[in-house]
C-alpha cells in the first residue's frame, strides 16, 4: 500500500510559475485579448422569466451606425433531436442551442434572445435596445415544489419524467427521478431508538467568480474558427461549439486565456458560440463580454433545493437507517446535480439501510451549472444537521457520533460501490484533536458547530507532453487551464520523477491544437489527472533518457539506473551523469527527447472534510459572525500545500457565504432583484477570520503519489456546520438557506 513518504519536490512550496505575470498585471485573461479590427458584441436578454417569442425584428438595430451584424436563434443550425456527447456528460442538443439563443421560448429572465456586433461596446448596447421582440408573457414557475405540482405551468411540452430509462406518459416539469436503495430501511428505522426527520430549503446561489464570461471569435477565409476565451476547458468549448454550430472540431481552435475563477461555472458555453456567429456574419473578430448582471441572470447558478432527511439511531449512537428526498431545481433545462447530491448525502457514514430519492425539476431560472461539489452541499446541509440533532438527543459529542458511524475502506456506499481507502475517520479525528475543538466555548450567544462532507472527485482524460531542453530544464505542455496554481502542482509531479527542481519545469497551458485531449479543470481533477499525465510523461522521458545513458556508456539499458537526479550504471562500469548533463548530450545520443503521457484514471479517490466553526449571534439583529473556522481535509498527498490550503480556505468561505447571505432573490414576476455584487452578498475579508486549513494525508491508491482532488469538498460542510453552531448559540435549528438575519429573527420569534 502507498504510504506517505518524503519527496524532494512534492510537499514543498515553490513560487508558482505564472505568479510574476499575475502580480504584475501582465497575465492576459480573456477580456484582455485584442485584435486589429475587433468588433464588440452584446447580447439582448429576455426581460421575462417565461414567455413565448412571437417575433424578433432586428431592422432598427441593424440601421444604427456602427452596427455590423445582428444574430438570433435563426442563425443557429437546426439541432434536430440529437444527444450531444460532451465528454463530461451528454446533453440534448436542442436544450444546449436554446440556452445559447432562445428560439421559441424565453425560459428565464436574462435568457439570451439576440446579439449585436458593433464598432464599440456602447453602440452594441444601444443597438440591443433597438431590437423589437414581441413576447407572449406566460406565468413563471419559480420554486421546485410548485413546479412539481400537477397543475404547474409547464416549461417544456415534451418533457416526461424518466426513471432510469423508463419514461412517464404525461408531460411534467420533473425531468427525471433517481433512486438508491440499500438494505431494508423499514427494518432499520424499526431498530432505531431515536428518529429525526426534518425538511430543508436551500436558495439559488452563484459561483461568483470575479471575471465575467468573455469570448473573442474569428473566422479565417478558409473557415478556420478560432476562439480566445476564459474557460475551465478549451476542449469542452471546442466540443460544445462544434455541436451547437454543427461544425467540425478540426476547423475549431480554442485558445484558453488566463481564467478569473470558474468553480464549475465556466464549463458550459454561453457567449462563445454567439461570438462565433457574429464573427461569421461580420467577417471580423468579435469580442463578447458579459457584465455582472449578465453573469448572474444569464449563467448557471447552482440550484435551490428542497430536501427531506430522516435518520434513525440506537441509544448507543449507531445510525440504523437513513432516508432522503431531494428535489433540485435544474433551471430552464434538465440537468441539476441531484445525482451527485443523492450519491453524497450519507457518504460520511456506514449505514446499512438507506433509501434516497432524487428529482430533477425544471423551473424558470437560469439553467444550473456545476458549482464546486455540485449537489453535495445542498444535501449535506440536510443530513449533517440531522446527525447533529441525533447527537444532541442522545447526548453524544457530535464528532464522536461521526466516528461511531464513519465510513471506511470496505464499507458500502448508499449508492452501491464499496469504498476504497478513504480518510473520513482521519478528518474527524484530526478535528476532534484540534485546539479549536478543545478550546472552551461557553460565552453567551456564542456557539460551536461541526459537520463533515464528501465529494467523489473525478478522473477523466488528460494529456501532457514534455520537451527536454539542453540546459536540463523541461517544457511541460498541458491542456488544463490553471485556475488556482495547477501549473505548479502539475510541474512538481514531473519534477519529482525527473529529480529536478520545480523551477526547472516551464509549464505552458496551450490551445486545442497543441496538446492531446484534456478534460476540464473541474471535478477536483486537475492536480490528480493532469498531474498523473505529467507523471507518465516524465516517466516516458526517464525511460528515453536511460536509453541515452546506456548508449553513451555502451551498456545495456537494464544496467542504467536513475535516482536523485543522477543516472548511473550498475554492474561493472562506474559511470554517472546528472539529468542536467545528459540533457546537454541529447544531440549526440540520438536527438531531442519528447515524452508524453495520457491518462483516463478511474480511481480519483473521494475526499472527506470535517469543519469546526464558532459563531456569535446578535440576538437583536439576527446577524451571525464567524469567530473561528477550522477546516480539516484529506488531500491524499498535498503536492503544493499552500495551494491545497488555498482551495480549502476558498471553498470554506464560499460555503460561509452560501450559509449566511448568498441567494438569488426573486420577485413574483421571476426577476432576480439582486443581480449585483452589492446585493448578492458574497463575503468580504472583513466578514471573516483566518481560516485554519488542516491537511490530512491518507494516500489515494489510484494515484502514483496518492493525490486526491482537493478543490470541491471544502464547500460541502460549512452550511451545516454553521447551522449547528447557530443552534449551539441560541437554541434555534435553522433549516433554510441562507441563514440571513431576517430568517434568524423570524426563527427566534423576534419578527
Amino acid at each position, binding site marked *: 500500500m502507498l504510504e506517505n513518504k518524503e519527496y524532494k519536490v512534492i510537499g514543498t512550496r515553490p513560487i508558482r510559475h505564472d505568479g510574476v505575470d499575475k502580480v504584475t498585471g501582465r497575465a492576459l485573461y480573456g477580456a484582455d485579448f485584442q485584435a486589429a479590427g475587433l468588433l464588440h458584441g452584446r447580447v439582448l436578454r429576455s426581460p421575462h422569466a417565461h414567455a413565448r417569442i412571437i417575433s424578433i425584428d432586428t431592422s432598427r438595430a441593424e440601421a444604427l451606425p456602427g452596427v455590423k451584424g445582428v444574430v438570433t436563434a435563426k442563425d443557429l443550425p437546426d439541432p434536430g433531436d440529437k444527444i450531444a456527447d460532451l465528454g463530461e456528460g451528454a446533453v440534448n442538443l436542442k436544450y444546449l442551442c436554446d440556452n445559447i439563443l432562445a428560439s421559441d421560448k424565453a425560459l428565464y429572465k436574462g435568457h439570451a434572445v439576440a446579439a449585436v456586433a458593433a464598432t464599440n461596446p456602447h453602440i452594441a448596447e444601444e443597438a440591443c435596445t433597438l431590437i423589437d421582440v414581441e413576447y407572449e408573457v406566460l406565468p413563471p414557475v419559480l420554486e421546485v415544489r410548485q413546479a412539481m405540482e400537477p397543475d404547474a405551468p409547464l416549461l417544456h411540452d415534451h418533457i416526461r419524467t424518466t426513471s432510469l430509462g423508463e419514461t412517464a406518459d404525461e408531460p411534467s416539469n420533473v425531468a427525471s427521478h433517481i433512486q438508491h436503495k440499500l438494505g431494508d430501511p423499514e427494518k432499520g428505522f424499526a431498530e432505531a431508538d431515536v428518529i429525526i426527520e426534518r425538511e430543508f430549503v436551500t436558495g439559488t446561489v452563484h459561483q461568483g467568480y470575479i471575471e465575467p464570461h468573455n469570448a473573442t471569435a474569428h473566422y479565417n477565409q478558409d473557415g478556420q474558427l478560432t476562439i480566445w476565451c476564459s474557460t475551465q476547458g478549451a476542449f469542452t468549448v471546442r466540443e460544445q461549439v462544434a455541436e451547437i454550430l454543427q461544425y467540425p472540431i478540426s476547423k475549431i481552435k480554442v485558445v484558453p486565456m488566463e481564467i478569473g475563477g470558474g468553480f464549475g461555472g465556466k464549463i458550459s458555453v454561453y457567449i462563445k458560440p454567439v461570438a462565433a456567429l457574429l464573427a461569421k456574419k461580420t467577417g471580423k473578430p468579435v469580442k463578447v463580454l458579459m457584465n455582472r448582471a449578465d453573469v448572474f441572470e444569464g449563467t448557471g447558478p447552482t440550484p435551490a433545493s428542497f430536501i427531506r432527511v430522516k435518520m434513525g439511531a440506537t441509544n448507543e449512537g449507531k445510525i440504523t437507517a437513513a432516508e432522503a428526498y431531494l428535489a433540485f431545481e435544474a433551471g430552464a433545462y434538465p440537468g441539476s446535480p441531484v445525482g451527485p447530491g443523492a450519491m453524497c448525502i450519507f457518504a460520511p457514514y456506514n449505514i446499512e439501510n438507506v433509501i434516497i430519492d432524487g428529482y430533477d425539476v425544471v423551473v424558470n431560472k437560469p439553467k444550473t451549472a456545476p458549482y464546486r461539489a455540485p449537489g453535495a452541499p445542498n444535501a449535506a446541509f440536510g443530513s449533517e444537521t440531522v446527525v447533529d440533532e441525533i447527537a444532541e438527543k442522545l447526548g453524544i459529542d457530535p464528532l464522536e457520533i461521526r466516528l461511531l458511524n464513519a465510513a471506511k475502506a470496505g464499507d458500502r456506499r448508499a449508492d452501491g*460501490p464499496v469504498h476504497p481507502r478513504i480518510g473520513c475517520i482521519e478528518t474527524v479525528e484530526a478535528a476532534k484533536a484540534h485546539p479549536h475543538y478543545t478550546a472552551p466555548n461557553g460565552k453567551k450567544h456564542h456557539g460551536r458547530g461541526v459537520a463533515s462532507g464528501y465529494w467523489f472527485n473525478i478522473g477523466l482524460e488528460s494529456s501532457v507532453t514534455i520537451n527536454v531542453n539542453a540546459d536540463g530544464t523541461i517544457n511541460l505542455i498541458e491542456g488544463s487551464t490553471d485556475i488556482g496554481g495547477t501549473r505548479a502542482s502539475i510541474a512538481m509531479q514531473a519534477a519529482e520523477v525527473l529529480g529536478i527542481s520545480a523551477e526547472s519545469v516551464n509549464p505552458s497551458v496551450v490551445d486545442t491544437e497543441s496538446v492531446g485531449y484534456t478534460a476540464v479543470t473541474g471535478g477536483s481533477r486537475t492536480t490528480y489527472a493532469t498531474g498523473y499525465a505529467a507523471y507518465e510523461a516524465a516517466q516516458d522521458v526517464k525511460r528515453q533518457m536511460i536509453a541515452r545513458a546506456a548508449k553513451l556508456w555502451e551498456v545495456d539499458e537494464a544496467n542504467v539506473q536513475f535516482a536523485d537526479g543522477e543516472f548511473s550504471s550498475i554492474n561493472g562500469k562506474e559511470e554517472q551523469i546528472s539529468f542536467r548533463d545528459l540533457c546537454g548530450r541529447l544531440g549526440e545520443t540520438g536527438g531531442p527527447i519528447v515524452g508524453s503521457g495520457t491518462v483516463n484514471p478511474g480511481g480519483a479517490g473521494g475526499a472527506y472534510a470535517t469543519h469546526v466553526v464558532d459563531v456569535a449571534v446578535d440576538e437583536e439583529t439576527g446577524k451571525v459572525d464567524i469567530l473561528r473556522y477550522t477546516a480539516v481535509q484529506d488531500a491524499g498527498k498535498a503536492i503544493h500545500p499552500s495551494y491545497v490550503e488555498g482551495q480549502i480556505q476558498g471553498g470554506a468561505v464560499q460555503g460561509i457565504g452560501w450559509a449566511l447571505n448568498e441567494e438569488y432573490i426573486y420577485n413574483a414576476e421571476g426577476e432576480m432583484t439582486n443581480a449585483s455584487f452589492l446585493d448578492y452578498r458574497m463575503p468580504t475579508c472583513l466578514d471573516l477570520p483566518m481560516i485554519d486549513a488542516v491537511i490530512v494525508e491518507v494516500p489515494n491508491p489510484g494515484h502514483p503519489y496518492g493525490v486526491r482532488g482537493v478543490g470541491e469538498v471544502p464547500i460541502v460542510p460549512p452550511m451545516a456546520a454553521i447551522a449547528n453552531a447557530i443552534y449551539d448559540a441560541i437554541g434555534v435549528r435553522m433549516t433554510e438557506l441562507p441563514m440571513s438575519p431576517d430568517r434568524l429573527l423570524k426563527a427566534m420569534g423576534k419578527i
Partner: protein
Amino acid sequence: MPTVAIPSLLRNLTNGKDSITVPGATIREVIDNLEDRYPGMKARLCEEDRIKPGLAVYVNGLLTRGSILEHVDTDAEIHFLPAIGGG
C-alpha cells in the same frame, strides 16, 4: 462470474432482486446476459449499443471509461450509477 448491482429503479425487472450474478467478460456480454434473463434490462441501460447518456459504469468501485467494451474480471462487482461531473 461478475455480480451486477441492480439499481432500485430496475428491480421491478428482477422481481426485487438487488444483485444478480451473470457470466460475461465485458460489460457488453454482462448486459446481454442480463437481458436474456431479465428482458427489458438492456433498453433501460443502453441506447444503440452504448451505455445511455447520463449513466456511468463502476467496476469494483472504480469509474470506468463508460464503454461497453470494458473488460470485467470474473469476480467483478458492477454498478450502473448517474454520471457525475464536477465543478
